[in-house]
């Protein structure tokens, strides 16, 4: 079994720790002198770069949250001049404004490196055809996989999302061997293949790298059965780099974190204390090599735990469990982040309705569907069908333009939405993971 960077991925853990300490020192110095926001936060705690000597000193540093990114929108946390930023990506934020991330040329090289490790650990080589059905664009999925695929010398097929019929044709005609997309899209493709009458023997698929949304072991089994491939879990978030933060090897014993670049901690989301190894809590990352957007103790809100024993594959990098949930209310819909508060702020801007709403998320034919049930306001109700239909369309358009998601709108009678303990129940997620 191939390992892309044996020197790092199988490094002695003490040696790795020394490397992490040195890189943390450099990072702290960089943010202290180049990011006013971090300098201020450190000064408030009475810290200067000399106080951070080893990775053990990390706990002294303040956390960073998605809100901090929003407050410094768009480029306030960048640590290098824009002339050295060669790429921008963005994902949706908590209240409408996107979270913007910037990469230096070296960051792009780092990203390609960690993606090369990811693809190699999934068994891909330069003989493979990598079918990338993640979206290309501001979303990091498509380009992240793309650069990694090129780095290992594979033949990259940048098919992007959508147009299932063409996906199947290219997969068949080009002989795609590695499929990269969200797990729900993989299942959708599996069914499309069945319906198209294409013979499985006519396809050369052998492995899939799936991420960008939570999925269960049951889903993995279903994908592996239906597509007759090995389904590999990959993990990443744009704030840290995009895909490539962590990935499984073919033994599927947890996701190896590329901790020479992204140092993980597990904290209790309530007390914010670091938890002992093996305990479940919120995953926090410090980027220790990034130039464009270095982040200190960034709270991912993903819940998981870490395993420090060496993997059967020989890698010594720490492994994380498949994410077990979130410590906030973020939803992931077809790979797009969605906070209920975003929906609420769109509704609040419309005078015709009161923000009494409920989101119902379901998975229909393996694709996420969102329905927004919103109560009709008595003051607006004028007994005209046309007016209600126009209102529905307006809500839909406003949501689509600010969230980038198409949501089905259902108008409901007031006070019919489920309440629990006096508080409105805003989200009903019927998807099974």
């Amino acid at each position, binding site marked *: 079994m191939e390992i892309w960077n044996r020197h790092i991925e199988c490094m002695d853990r003490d040696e790795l720790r020394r490397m992490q300490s040195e890189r943390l020192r450099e990072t702290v110095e960089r943010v202290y002198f180049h990011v006013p926001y971090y300098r201020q936060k450190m000064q408030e705690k009475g810290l200067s770069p000399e106080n951070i000597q080893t990775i053990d000193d990390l706990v002294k540093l303040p956390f960073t949250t998605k809100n901090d990114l929003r407050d410094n929108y768009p480029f306030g946390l960048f640590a290098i001049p824009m002339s050295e930023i060669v790429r921008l990506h963005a994902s949706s934020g908590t209240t409408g404004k996107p979270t913007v991330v910037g990469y230096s040329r070296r960051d792009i090289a780092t990203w390609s490196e960690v993606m090369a490790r990811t693809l190699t650990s999934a068994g891909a080589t330069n003989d493979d055809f990598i079918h990338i059905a993640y979206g290309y664009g501001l979303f990091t999925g498509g380009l992240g996989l793309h650069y990694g695929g090129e780095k290992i010398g594979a033949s990259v097929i940048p098919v992007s999302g959508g147009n299932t019929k063409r996906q199947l044709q290219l997969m068949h005609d080009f002989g795609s061997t590695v499929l990269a997309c969200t797990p729900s899209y993989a299942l959708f493709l599996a069914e499309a293949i069945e319906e198209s009458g294409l013979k499985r023997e006519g396809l050369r698929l052998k492995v899939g790298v799936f991420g960008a949304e939570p999925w269960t072991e049951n889903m993995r089994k279903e994908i592996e059965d239906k597509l007759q491939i090995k389904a590999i879990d990959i993990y990443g978030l744009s704030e840290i780099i995009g895909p490539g933060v962590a990935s499984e090897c073919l033994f599927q014993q947890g996701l190896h974190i590329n901790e020479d670049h992204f140092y993980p901690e597990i904290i209790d989301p309530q007390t914010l204390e670091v938890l002992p190894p093996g305990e479940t809590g919120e995953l926090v990352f410090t980027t220790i090599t990034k130039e464009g957007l270095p982040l200190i103790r960034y709270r991912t809100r993903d819940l998981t735990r870490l395993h420090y024993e060496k993997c059967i594959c020989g890698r010594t990098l720490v492994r994380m469990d498949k994410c077990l949930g979130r410590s906030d209310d973020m939803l992931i819909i077809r790979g797009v982040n969605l906070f209920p508060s975003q929906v609420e702020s769109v509704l609040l801007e419309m005078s015709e309705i009161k923000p009494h709403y409920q989101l119902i998320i379901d998975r229909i034919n393996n694709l996420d569907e969102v329905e927004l049930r919103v109560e*009709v306001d*008595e003051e607006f109700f004028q*007994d005209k069908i046309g007016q209600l239909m126009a209102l529905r369309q307006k809500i839909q358009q406003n949501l689509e333009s600010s969230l980038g998601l198409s949501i089905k709108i259902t108008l409901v009678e007031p006070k019919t939405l489920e309440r629990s303990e006096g508080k409105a129940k805003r989200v009903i997620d019927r998807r099974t993971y």
Partner: protein
Amino acid sequence: MIIHQLSVFLENKSGRLTEVLETLGQENIKITALSVADTSEFGILRLIVSDPVKAKKLLKEKSFTVNLTEVLSIITPNESRYYAKALKVLSDLEISIEYTYAFSVGEKSVIILRANNPELAIKALQDQEIELLRASELYKI
């Protein structure tokens, strides 16, 4: 000559219409006319009742979205040409009709309509000696 019609927003789910009718029935509110406009997901129930103000209050207490809407009512002999004549009076003046429904009582037809300019519509119909019903008359039918 303005009639207050009760308009109720209804989700398309079973039992809602029954609940409206039961609520009104318990308080002895009589229904003269009823019509439902519907889409695939929701509908609007329109009612002419004996006491619209009280009916609105009762339904509001049951959390229905309800409003009083101003409509007109005319009474004509029971032949379609009279209905046509009344509509033509309005269309000649470019008064548009949002919706209309009708029912017959013996030899007469009672027509309910919602016009975008009710005052002008009343005047035009009266000028043509088309008989309009007062609320008090309609509620008693």
